[in-house]
């Protein structure tokens, strides 16, 4: 059976639904094609009762469907009703499997698809694009012919499927909505990522359900899951609530049974249900197969689009999360706009126009939004390759400001992770008091903060009346992933600047040309060594991202020598003093280093005595530490051990990537939990810290509390871009949080919780004298339920430590510790703490 429509819309999320509603309103023949048996699967899968947020608030909604913040159920019900009322044609349970043109070949339009295989090799396929109309092949065997296609399939992709005989049987499922649904079953969970573990624990949680749960792990490690989840799983297995089978894979599935390949050979076991949680494959391959090109090979890249969302396949439009706009409001507006465009409306201004206009309002001249976008694109070199649509998106995440001559743009030691582009004028970088280095129009600055996530290294002022674009970290990362030339340019500039800043010594960019040509950026896995003691080699390594520890073997033991944060360098000893490497340098977390060719560096040192002098000084300081440790090795071996062990413990606990961390000295902690109470009372009554939980070594306790990582994992995937680094280096979540929980899942240290603000408590004095309210600290669930405002639903949002930013006096946990056990330290300092602790005892 073949349908013929004007517009086929693939995916019924907010983007697709809004597009279909517009098509219905315009009376265009259309079909909304949805893989599942309900509308908007991503939102359908939110947890029950989730409060859905409607950010950004200043953006007006332009759609035939309504949307405002509220419960998931209310929104879905509303949409279902509106889709029916407005005459939207929906095909449910129909997954689009292929989209191909059935017109003539388009001359010169050839789609190259690069396929990466598991073994690392790649293969390039070439496909001749064909003109519209398009034929869409659906999984139910139907075909649909459409003049235009709107792709709105989101970014969820498809779960990775089991590939064994019987995997298509109905008791194999890829999702678990409610673990309470199943009773007295033999259930196998396949996959030991967080999702699999959480499902297994959920199924085994209530013994009364009587499920026999087994979780299968292909290897012996649980590398892809959070430590807390693994621990809980082990505890559950220990307690006999579920079984873990390692080095086991599935061989065959039959009704009632599963056959496994295990260490002891093949076993056939009773099995009523299989829950496969083996990750999901992003929809990219499918999208590419439709003739849609992506901006780069990067994992984070989005499809290449025109200002009206048209992809490289003419007549196929991409909108919504798949186009790089994860917020529901954006999705809905785009659905409306794209259908208007397809219907011939060329004058419609995008709904985000007022937001952009507001950004440009403060600039000296009056120009239209489109003109400003073009002005910035043409005048800032790294933006050159962006399309008008990309420029729009880019500016939504960025700011643009005018500065007068001598205005300070940022100060040395300010925290900041944004990048600045000079669209007009000049910036002056104060490298030493009274010594300014100019950076001219078209170039960028501030990139070190972006790369290494640390404080600004110098004060920058405007050298003339200027216009600067401030690019947020997110926007900069997007820019780099979608635009390879921009990435190369930023990397080269930042390497050059980092070297200039590190070595100072009167170097100029020209001096570095030779070194930069041979410089190479390398990613180093946690624990991997860049230098090994005894090796030959004279290259110099600059730590760009992450941090390293330096170790030396003394008497057969690895002794910790020092900690190197991003922005330091190693390798000078072998180069200056000759001989093999005297110590091993290992990454504490996944890091990036710049390798500089030793010979080129030696030539530079020969030409620049000041640089040689500087390197000699650093080397002497390091040799002192080595000598100190060596001299103590007999008399103080325990002290040295203690120091190394403590350092190792701290590094193992993620402190290598911390910028500020709460430690508790358990020689002093009396367990009063005043730190938790202070935390709760300083932040809307919710504590962001669990004192008792966490690791301890030699009485140094790392509680469950944010470490303000150099490269925060939580920031990685935040739809409203609500996580930032604040003025004191703190990583905080702002009020635009939509409560999706991505950050909580991404945090390896389990320090983010989802909760709603509890009701206000009566004051301290009324509690003390009249016993009113729950007293200091986080109120109990019971009190919260009793005192909640009836009928008012408070959204659950992500909360985490913000280092008490904006609270005078600093972190409340530390101020409120009666014995001085709680301290906050930067990694450079706590190793000193470890050492002092070691020597004092």
């Amino acid at each position, binding site marked *: 059976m073949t349908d013929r429509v004007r517009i086929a819309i693939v995916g019924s999320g907010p983007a697709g639904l809004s597009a279909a509603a517009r098509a219905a309103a315009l009376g265009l023949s259309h079909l909304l094609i949805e893989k599942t048996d309900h509308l908007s699967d991503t939102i359908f899968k939110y947890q029950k009762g989730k409060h859905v947020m409607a950010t950004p608030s200043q953006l007006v909604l332009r759609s035939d469907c309504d949307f405002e913040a509220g419960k998931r159920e209310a929104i879905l019900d509303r949409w279902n009703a509106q889709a029916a009322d407005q005459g939207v044609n929906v095909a449910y349970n129909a997954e689009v499997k292929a989209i191909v043109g059935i017109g003539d070949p388009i001359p010169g339009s050839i789609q190259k698809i690069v396929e990466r295989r598991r073994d690392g090799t790649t293969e390039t396929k070439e496909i001749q694009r064909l003109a519209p109309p398009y034929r869409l092949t659906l999984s139910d065997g139907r075909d649909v012919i459409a003049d235009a296609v709107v792709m709105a399939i989101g970014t969820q992709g498809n779960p990775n499927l089991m590939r064994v005989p019987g995997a298509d049987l109905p008791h194999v499922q890829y999702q678990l909505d409610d673990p309470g649904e199943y009773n007295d079953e033999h259930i196998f969970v396949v996959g030991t990522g967080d999702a699999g573990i959480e499902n297994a624990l959920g199924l085994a949680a209530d013994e009364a359900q009587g499920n026999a749960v087994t979780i299968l792990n292909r290897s012996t490690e649980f590398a892809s899951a959070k430590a807390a989840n693994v621990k809980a799983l082990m505890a559950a297995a220990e*307690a006999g609530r579920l079984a873990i089978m390692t080095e086991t894979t599935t061989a065959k599935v039959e009704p009632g049974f599963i056959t496994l390949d295990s260490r002891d050979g093949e076993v056939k076991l009773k099995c009523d249900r299989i829950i496969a949680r083996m990750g999901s494959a992003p929809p990219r391959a499918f999208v590419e197969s439709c003739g849609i090109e992506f901006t780069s090979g990067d994992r984070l890249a989005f499809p290449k689009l025109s200002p009206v969302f048209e992809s490289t396949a003419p007549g196929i439009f991409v909108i919504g999360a798949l186009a790089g706009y994860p917020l529901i409001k954006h999705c809905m507006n785009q659905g409306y706009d794209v259908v208007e465009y397809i219907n011939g409306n060329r004058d419609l201004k995008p709904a985000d126009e007022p937001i952009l206009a507001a950004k440009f309002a403060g600039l000296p001249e009056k120009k239209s939004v489109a003109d400003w976008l073009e002005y910035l694109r043409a005048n800032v070199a790294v933006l050159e390759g962006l399309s008008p649509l990309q420029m729009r998106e880019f500016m939504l995440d960025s700011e643009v400001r005018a500065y007068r001559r001598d205005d300070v743009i940022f100060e040395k030691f300010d925290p900041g992770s944004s990048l600045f582009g000079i669209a007009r004028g000049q910036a002056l970088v104060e490298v030493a008091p009274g010594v300014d280095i100019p950076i001219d129009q078209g170039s960028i600055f501030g990139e070190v903060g972006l790369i290494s996530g640390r404080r600004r290294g110098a004060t920058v002022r405007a050298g003339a009346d200027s216009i600067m674009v401030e690019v947020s970290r997110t926007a900069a990362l997007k820019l780099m992933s979608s635009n390879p030339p921009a990435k190369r340019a930023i990397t080269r500039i930042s390497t050059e600047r980092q070297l200039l800043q590190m070595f100072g010594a009167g170097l100029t960019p020209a001096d570095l040309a030779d070194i930069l040509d041979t410089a190479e950026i390398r990613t180093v896995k946690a624990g991997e060594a860049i230098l090994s003691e005894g090796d030959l080699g004279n290259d110099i390594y600059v730590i760009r991202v992450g941090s390293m520890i330096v170790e030396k073997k003394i008497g057969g033991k690895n002794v910790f020598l020092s900690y190197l944060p991003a*922005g330091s360098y190693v390798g000078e000893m072998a180069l200056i003093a000759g001989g093999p490497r005297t110590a091993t340098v290992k990454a504490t977390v996944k890091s990036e280093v710049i390798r500089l060719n030793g010979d080129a560096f030696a030539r530079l040192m020969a030409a620049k005595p000041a640089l040689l002098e500087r390197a000699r000084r650093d080397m002497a300081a*390091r040799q002192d530490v080595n000598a100190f440790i060596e001299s103590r090795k007999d008399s103080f071996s325990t002290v040295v051990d203690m120091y190394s062990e403590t350092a190792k413990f701290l590094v193992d606990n993620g402190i290598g990537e911390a910028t500020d961390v709460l430690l508790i000295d358990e020689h002093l902690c009396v367990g009063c939990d005043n730190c938790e109470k202070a935390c709760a009372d300083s932040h809307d009554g919710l504590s962001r810290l669990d004192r008792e939980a966490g690791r301890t070594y030699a009485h140094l306790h790392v509680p469950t509390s944010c470490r303000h990582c150099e490269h925060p994992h939580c920031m990685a995937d935040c739809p409203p871009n609500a996580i930032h680094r604040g003025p004191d280096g703190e990583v905080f979540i702002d009020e635009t949080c939509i409560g999706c929980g991505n950050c909580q899942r991404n945090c390896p240290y389990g320090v983010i919780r989802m909760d709603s603000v509890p009701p206000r408590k009566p004051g301290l004095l009324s509690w003390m004298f009249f016993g009113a309210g729950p007293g200091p600290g986080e109120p109990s669930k019971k009190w919260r339920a009793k005192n909640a405002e009836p009928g008012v639903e408070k959204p659950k949002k992500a909360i985490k430590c913000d280092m008490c930013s904006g609270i005078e006096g600093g972190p409340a946990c530390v*101020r409120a510790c009666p014995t*001085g056990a709680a301290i906050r330290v930067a990694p450079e300092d706590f190793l*000193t703490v470890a050492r002092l602790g070691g020597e004092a005892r």
Partner: protein
Amino acid sequence: MAAGAASPIRRAKGEVLHDGFLRHAGFRWLKIATLICVLSIASYMLVDVTPRHNGGSWYGYAMGTIGVLLILWLTLLGLRKRAMTRGRWSLKAWTSAHVYLGLSLIVIATLHTGFQLGWNVHTLAYALMMLVILSGLFGIAVYATLPAALSNNRAEMTQVQMLDAVRAIDRQLHDAAQPLTHEQAALVRQSLEDDPFGGGLIARLSGRYPRCATARAQAALRRWTGETPDTGNDPLERIDALLERKQAMLARLRRHLKLKALLEIWLYVHVPATFALLAALTAHVVSVFFYW
């Protein structure tokens, strides 16, 4: 060390990062309190009050006023501890001052009395003050010695995890007891139904639970297992091992609760005695002015 270009730390080098409340700021409050005591004793010696030193002389009034103000300020620690206001205060500094200035009261108040004690409300106030101070001394003794023990004992477990662990063992005991004879199962049930922390304050503080049902169940079951060699598949052996584990976990939990109780119990003397002291002090002051 590797001087990275952009040193992110603003903290001045050499600043002591970390010391406890007793050592706070190089024993600042110990020094101040000592100075106050020395000045008080010296002035007591130098000032000539006729016929002899007593609370009613101008010198006595001076000392008394200082004492009352100090006591009021010391009481305010309870408020400071809980008022999470903004600002550059540190509870550690407050505690440090509290301890040393509190101790200096021994000297100030004693000199205030001019060593004239008797059976009256004035001496009652003095005695209550000494009680508060003595309990405070006990407090700093436990604060100084027990935290390390608490930390060692809990071995990275939280109290909730310890309780969970006991519960998990209980579940296994319950399952493992199914094949047992009625008599044996009753012993296991005894352990399951026991409140392992019953026994009141004495048990809590001493950490000794002589009537622990788990210990008794194990001892009783050993009557059966004692004779037979371990074969590895007798359900009683499994029960025995589980009871052993439960006992170890209970011992840890009980030590944990004991240490926590010791760290807190003295406050149950310190604080109520403070309020009694405030009452007695009011009576003392009112009576002095009333009968003057």
